[in-house]
C-alpha cells in the first residue's frame, strides 16, 4: 500500500463512510478506581492516626469499664491518707485517703464525656452559624452572625468562663460542657464560613437551586456533606480543646467537684502542695494521662486532616 493510492480525504466528502451511526460497542464500563477512599480508610492509612485510635480505644474501654477495672471507689475516702503504692492502692492515696489509681481510672470518664459532648455541641454551633453566615454572605444575616462570631472570638474566654461557672449555682459536668462549648465555637465557625463561601459558588449548588431546593436544604443537605472533613477535623479539634479546657478549669478549682476528673486531681494535688510533699504520682500521673489522651486525639486529627488535605496523604 502506497501513499499515492490513498487519496487525501477532502473535507466534507464521505470520509467516514465506513462508520455506522449509533453503533453500541462496549457496554459502558464503570470502574471503581475513581471512588475516593472511604474516610475511615483514609484515616486508618495514617500511622499516627492508627496509634491515636488505638490509644483512644484503650481510654474508652477504661472509661466504660471503670467500675470493673478500678480497684476502689474513687470517692471512698476511707483509706489511710498519703499511703504509698500498695496492692489495694496501686498508686497510693490522696491526702484525704482516696485511691489515686481509681480516681485516675474514673477520671477518664469525665474527660471523654466532656470531649465528646463539648466537642459535639461546639461543632454544631460552629457549623450552624458558620454555614448560615457563609451561605448568606454579604447579607444582613451574615453581618449579624459574623458580628456575633467576632465578638465571641474576641471576648477573653477565661474571665467569661469564670463568670459563667461562678454564676451558676451548681457545678455539674453539664455546666462545664456547656460553658466550654459556648466559649469555643467561634474560631471553627469562621473557618466554616470561609469554606462554605468557596463551596457556595460551585456549580452543584446552583444546580440544586435549579432542582427547586430551598435554602436550608441546600446548606445542610447539599453543601454540608461536602464539608465532612472540615467538620470532622473541627470536632476532633474541639474535643481535644475541651478535654484540655476541662482540666484547666478544674485545675483552677472551677471544675465539677462531685466527680473525679484529671483536672480536679491536678487541682487537689496542687492545692495540697503535693509537689512539696513529694507526692509525685498524684501530680504527674494525671497530667501525663491527660497529655497522652490529647496527643492521641491530635494524632487522630492528623488522620482527619488527610481527608481535607489530600496532599498530606502520601505522608502517613
Amino acid at each position: 500500500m502506497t501513499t499515492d493510492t490513498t487519496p487525501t480525504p477532502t473535507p466534507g466528502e464521505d470520509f467516514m463512510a465506513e462508520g455506522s451511526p449509533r453503533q453500541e460497542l462496549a457496554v459502558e464500563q464503570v470502574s471503581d478506581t475513581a471512588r475516593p477512599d472511604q474516610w475511615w480508610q483514609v484515616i486508618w492509612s495514617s500511622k499516627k492516626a492508627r496509634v491515636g485510635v488505638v490509644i483512644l480505644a484503650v481510654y474508652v474501654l477504661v472509661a466504660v469499664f471503670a467500675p470493673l477495672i478500678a480497684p476502689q471507689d474513687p470517692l471512698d475516702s476511707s483509706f489511710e491518707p498519703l499511703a504509698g503504692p500498695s496492692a489495694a492502692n496501686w498508686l497510693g492515696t490522696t491526702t484525704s485517703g482516696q485511691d489515686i489509681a481509681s480516681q485516675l481510672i474514673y477520671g477518664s470518664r469525665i474527660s471523654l464525656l466532656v470531649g465528646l459532648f463539648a466537642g459535639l455541641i461546639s461543632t454544631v454551633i460552629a457549623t450552624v452559624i458558620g454555614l448560615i453566615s457563609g451561605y448568606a454572605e454579604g447579607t444582613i444575616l451574615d453581618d449579624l452572625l459574623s458580628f456575633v462570631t467576632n465578638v465571641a472570638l474576641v471576648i477573653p474566654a477565661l474571665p467569661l468562663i469564670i463568670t459563667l461557672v461562678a454564676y451558676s449555682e451548681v457545678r455539674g459536668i453539664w455546666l462545664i460542657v456547656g460553658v466550654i462549648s459556648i466559649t469555643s465555637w467561634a474560631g471553627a465557625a469562621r473557618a466554616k464560613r470561609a469554606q462554605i463561601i468557596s463551596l457556595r459558588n460551585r456549580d452543584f449548588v446552583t444546580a440544586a437551586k435549579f432542582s427547586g431546593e430551598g435554602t436550608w436544604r441546600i446548606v445542610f443537605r447539599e453543601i454540608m456533606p461536602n464539608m465532612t472533613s472540615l467538620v470532622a477535623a473541627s470536632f476532633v479539634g474541639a474535643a481535644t480543646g475541651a478535654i484540655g479546657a476541662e482540666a484547666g478549669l478544674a485545675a483552677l478549682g472551677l471544675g465539677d467537684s462531685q466527680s473525679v476528673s484529671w483536672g480536679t486531681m491536678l487541682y487537689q494535688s496542687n492545692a495540697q502542695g503535693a509537689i512539696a510533699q513529694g507526692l509525685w504520682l498524684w501530680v504527674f500521673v494525671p497530667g501525663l494521662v491527660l497529655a497522652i489522651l490529647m496527643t492521641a486525639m491530635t494524632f487522630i486529627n492528623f488522620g482527619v486532616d488527610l481527608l481535607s488535605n489530600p496532599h498530606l496523604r502520601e505522608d502517613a
Partner: protein
Amino acid sequence: LTGCAGSASQKDSKASADGMIDQLTFPSEADAAVGGLVNYNPNSPKPLTATWLYEPLIVRNSLTCEETPWLATKSTWEGGNKLTFDIRDGVKWSDGQAFTAKDVAFTFNLMKQYPAFDKAGVWNNTFGAPAKSVTAQGNQVVFEFTGNAAPKYDGIIATKILPEHVYSKVGDPTKYVDKTPVSTGPYKVGSYNGRRLVLERRADYWQADKVKVQKIVLEGQYDAAQAALKLRAGQLDAYYGEVPNPKKTFVDADPKNNHFYYAPNGMTVLTGNDQQKPFSDVKFREAISYAMNKQDMSLKATYGVMKPASQTGLKLPSMASLVPAKYSGEDTVLPYDLAKANQLLDAAGYKKGADGKRTNPDGSPLSVNFSVQAGFIDYQAIADVVVKGLNDIGVNSKVTASAPDSVDGQKKTGDFQLMLEYLHGGCELAKNIGAKLSSTQIPTKTDIFPNVQRFSDPAVDAAVTKLASDTDKESQKADLAPLVDTMMTKFPVTALIYAPARILYRTDKAVGWPSEDNAYANPQDDKLLVLTHLTAPK
C-alpha cells in the same frame, strides 16, 4: 535540696555576737500581683506592710486574751460608755517628733470625718453604740459613747495610730498614697524596689532593746507548695499561710530547725438553717451532732493537725478559764456515736423507712443538701465526712459544691440547708460567740452577719446584750454561761474542728517563736508581739 537561688539572704544571716539577728525574710504582706505601687497607708486595702510601721494601742493575744500594753500603757472602761487609755510616754515618730495622746485622738476623729476609714466601727452602730467623742486629755485619750460600746474594744485597741502632723494635711486619708511613712513602729523603710521591701530596725524605737532583728525583708507571694519549698530552702523564715500537711511538707525536711504552730483560733462549725425543717428541730440538731466523725475530719482536712472542737464554742484549752463551772471537767467535745444519734432520731420521730432512709416526723421525705464552697479543699473534705455521717444514720444527704461567692449569697438569702462556717474565737466574746447566737446578727440581703444559722431566742439575745455591756472579765464569764449552755443544749451550730492561726518558721536564725507550749501570741495576727520575743539562737 540545695537552695542556692536568692542566696543573698543566706550569706549575711549568721547571728552576730551581740544576740542580734541580721535579717529575717517573710512573705510580702501586700499580697499583690504587681509591685512598684508604693503605699504604706495602713488603711489602704493593700499597704506594703501593715505590721512593722504603724502600731496599735494594745496588743491582745487572741488565743489567751492576754493584753500587752503597746502605745497605750493602760485601758480603763467606766461602764460600757466610757473608755480611757493612758498613752505611753517617750515614744517618737520616725521623723523625730514626739508621739502624744493628740495623735491618738486625731486618728479616731479622722474616722468620724471619713467613714471609709472607720474599720473599728467606732462611729457607727456595728457592735455597740457609736462614739460621741474622742478627746485627748493630757496623756490620756477618752472615748465617750452614746451607749454601751464594749464590743468595740478589740477594734479600737488594734487601730493603727497615725501621726497628726502628717495625716492632718493630706485630706481624705483613704485617698492618700503614703509613700514616706512617719510611724512609731520598730522599723523604717530601708528600700523598696517594687518587689522586695527591706525594713531596717529603728535604734530609737521605744522598746528597741527588745527588737533583735536588724532587717526584715518582705518579698514574694507564695502558694502553699512554693512557700514550703522556699521555707525548706531557707529563703523564707516564716510563713503564715495555709500549708497542708506541714509536718511532712516542712518539718520532716529538717526537724531541728523547721517548726510549725497551728494555733486554734476559732472553729469550723456545721451550720444548719435553723429556720427550716429539719434543722429547726433542736432534737434533730442534737442527734446529728453525734454523727460527726470529727477525728476523721481532722485527719482528712488538716492531716490531723487541728483537733476536734468543743461544743461550747470556746477554743480549748486556751479559753479553758471561761468554761462555766457546770461543764468544767467534762469533755465538751461531743463523741462520735452513731448509736446515740440513731436513738435520738428514733425518739424524735424521724422514722427509718424500709430503704434505711429516715423521714420527717410528719412523714414527708427527709433530705439534706449540703452547700460547700468549691475549691475550699479542706471544707470539701469535711463535707464528705459530714455527709457520710448523715447518711450513716439514715439522713439522706448530698454535697453540692458552689462557688464561694454563691455560698456567701446563700448566707445572705438564707436559701440553704446545711453548710460549713467559721466561729471566730476572738476575745471580744459578745462580738464573737455572742454575735453568732444573737438574733440581731442574722444576715440581711446585703450583708453577712455572724448568725448565719438564723438562731433566734429572746433569752439568748438578752444574755448577749448583757455580755456586751460587761467590761469586767469575771462577770463576763458569768454572762457567758447561758450562751455556752445554749451551744451545749440547743446546738444552734455543731462544733467540728478548730480552725488555725498559722505559722511555719525556722529556728536557725531566730528563736522564741510562739508554740503550743508557749502560746504567748497569736502567731498570725500578733507579729509585732512575736518580734519582741525573737532572739538569736545560742
